[in-house]
């Protein structure tokens, strides 16, 4: 008797909860739009620090004052995880940062409102950036800013080694030569993160890349890529190149700042870290050296995603427009050292920040990240393999990436 009563109770409780759940999870389509005069929006950001949080808050409250709406800016501790939970729960923030690694997953899951084509100034974003945030021939979301890779050199060590400005490396051979020259007992000539995000520049300079241009084929095991990794491996075995962990640093910038590295390859986020953490270390940023196939660098970006389930699409787009005016982009650039994503703003930026011109110039020929849904796990494995490059076979690493990547493309997962 008691057993049966218990069973009924739990069944009822289950039914009740399921009903509760399904109303929470909601449907997949766009939400019913709110047409009230005053609306309240939530913006979730994955902030690089207080400078970024405060700049976004200031821009949001200026817009709120102007339009009479209210905006709450939430800096996330772990954006991917918090967004994952919010999307699964059916109540995502109205506007949020979407990194290129998760962009394809969100776009495929129909979580993003594709508003890019509504922007009158959409052609002011470079083609590479628009490509990075397009899905199914639709320009989904506006790039927030951009970053590219360049070579940073410790000027004091450079002089000490008897090198001049004329010696700034132009080719792979130059790079190898100076890296060996700069390597001493306590200093590594070149320290670069073992991630494809930093080493990927070599693939590009060699004429290869992980996928073809429209990301319909994996081209990881191409001869050009093998060539690039063989070159990197050579630098590693000569001791001219080291990974940050080998010199007890967290990333290339830390190695440069703590003077364990004479050179590093990093993006323009380096500028902010150097000026706040290591203001006394003098360094110079130069373009990445050319490989057999010429110049190559990588670009990174985040976009302003608008949730499909947001009930305030009109207000959301208006706020994103306010965030992406050329003037506001320059204000963000000043506040936390990112490159504007709009070409018109970039021209002004180069004049205002001549020391970051190298990064800005890189956007013209930079390779955007891979944005195939589910591809992150292949890239995570690639990063893990790259960390062991010194004792591994470049061909094997690339053919593993090829196999894993093809499996993802084929499975559509």
């Amino acid at each position, binding site marked *: 008797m008691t057993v049966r009563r*218990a069973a009924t*109770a*739990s069944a009822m*409780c*289950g039914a009740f*909860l*399921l009903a509760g*759940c*399904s109303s929470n*999870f*909601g*449907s*997949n389509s766009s939400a019913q739009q709110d047409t009230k005069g005053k609306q309240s929006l939530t913006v979730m950001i994955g902030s690089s620090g207080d400078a970024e949080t405060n700049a976004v808050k200031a821009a949001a409250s200026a817009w709120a004052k102007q339009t009479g709406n209210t905006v709450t800016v939430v800096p996330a501790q*772990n954006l*991917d*995880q918090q967004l*994952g939970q919010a*999307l*699964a729960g*059916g109540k995502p923030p109205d506007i949020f940062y979407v990194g290129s690694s*998760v962009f394809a*997953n*969100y776009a*495929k*899951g*129909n*979580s993003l409102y594709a508003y890019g084509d509504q922007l009158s100034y959409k052609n002011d974003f470079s083609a590479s950036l628009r490509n990075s945030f397009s899905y199914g021939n639709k320009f989904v979301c506006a790039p927030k800013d951009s970053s590219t890779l360049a070579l940073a050199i410790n000027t004091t060590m450079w002089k000490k080694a008897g090198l001049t400005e004329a010696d700034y490396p132009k080719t792979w051979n130059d790079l190898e030569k100076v890296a060996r020259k700069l390597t001493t007992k306590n200093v590594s000539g070149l320290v670069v993160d073992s991630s494809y995000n930093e080493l990927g520049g070599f693939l590009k300079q060699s004429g290869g890349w992980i996928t073809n241009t429209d990301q319909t084929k994996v081209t990881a095991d191409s001869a050009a890529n093998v060539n690039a990794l063989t070159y990197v491996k050579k630098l590693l075995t000569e001791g001219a190149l080291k*990974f940050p*962990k*080998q*010199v*007890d640093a967290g990333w290339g910038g830390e190695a440069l700042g703590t003077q364990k590295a004479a050179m590093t390859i990093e993006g323009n986020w380096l500028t902010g870290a150097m000026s706040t953490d290591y203001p006394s270390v003098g360094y110079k940023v130069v373009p990445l050296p050319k490989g057999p196939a010429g110049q190559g660098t990588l670009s990174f970006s985040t976009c302003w995603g608008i949730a499909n389930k947001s009930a305030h699409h009109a207000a959301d787009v208006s706020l994103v427009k306010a965030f992406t005016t050329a003037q506001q982009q320059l204000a963000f650039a000043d506040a936390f050292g990112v490159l504007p994503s709009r070409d018109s703003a970039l021209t002004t930026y180069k004049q205002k920040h001549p020391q970051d011109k190298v990064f800005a110039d890189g956007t013209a020929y930079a390779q955007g990240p891979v944005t195939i849904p*589910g591809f*992150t*796990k*292949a890239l*995570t*494995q690639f990063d*893990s*393999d790259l*960390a*062991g490059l010194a*004792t591994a076979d470049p061909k094997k690493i690339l053919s593993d990436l090829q*196999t*894993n990547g093809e*499996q993802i493309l084929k499975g559509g*997962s």
Partner: protein
Amino acid sequence: MVIILGLFLVLPIGMALWVSLLHWDGQSNPFSGAADFVGLHNYADLSTSAGQDRQLFMTSVRNNLYYVLLVVPLQTALSLGLAIAVNSRRIKGKGFFRTVFYFPSVTSSIAISTVFLFLFQGSGAVNALLKWVGITGPKWFTDAHGLVWSLLGLLGVVDPDKPVAALAAHGFLGLSWWDWLSGPSIAMCTIIVLAVWTTSGTYMLIFLAALQDVPVELEEAALLDGANRWQSFRNVTLPALRPVLFLVITLGLIGTWQVFDAVYVMSQGAPANTTLTPAYLSYTAGFQDADYGRAAAIAFILLAIILAMTIVQRVLLRDRDEPTTRTRFLRRRTS
């Protein structure tokens, strides 16, 4: 009671089980039919069909297996040793030692992991200490070599960098025998040391409580009968501790198969996936790859492993118990 159990236990488990049968990207309602039902596909990807998913999962199982095989005996022995030391009637300042030994257990594991990161840096305190006695320490967190091959390498039997062809060519469930037999990596060893150090305090308390329940008269009687300290410990104290031993080993098994926080803070699976554990893999499958179905499937396989291990352990501890009582009983009848 039923409502609470249903709400917090049965329902979430049922939901997770359902999710493990779906291909769900976490952006729709998994109970509305929007996510594809794929049956046992997620489980097959992890076990029978070759590919990256299976390779990663089997690597994580291998890592965790060696972790369990080292941590559980070490922490049980260490905590029992500490408990006996603190329980000794001759020692002074028992309260002080009890607190000191228990200290690592009350400290946040995130904080301890961070401290260990600094201790085991290439130029950290541990390597400085090793250098002092003339040993060049390894680069702890970047050394992916297996302990077994490294030790055999020191003896000159194998070269850790060059897998033996016979072992590397053949494999089982997507991993070569060379990989299966490699033992924990040097990086994993630091996490093992951390786990033993932080958990032994808690288990010491459990052992201590049990030791204080062992009647002093029994031990004294054994000593009077001419047993030495070891014999009295082996034949009087240890049998009295058997239920508690079972408890500690069970808790240890469950805790070690679920290791996550130390991996999350210290290594995120690096180097070369040798510190990847199923719990951490489940996390990345869900929140990085947005493949919640696979994440849930990993969690259920982990549950099955824990249950199987606990049952095996129970049978082992019970089997040793029963024959001895039976023989004693027989002996008593015949005499």
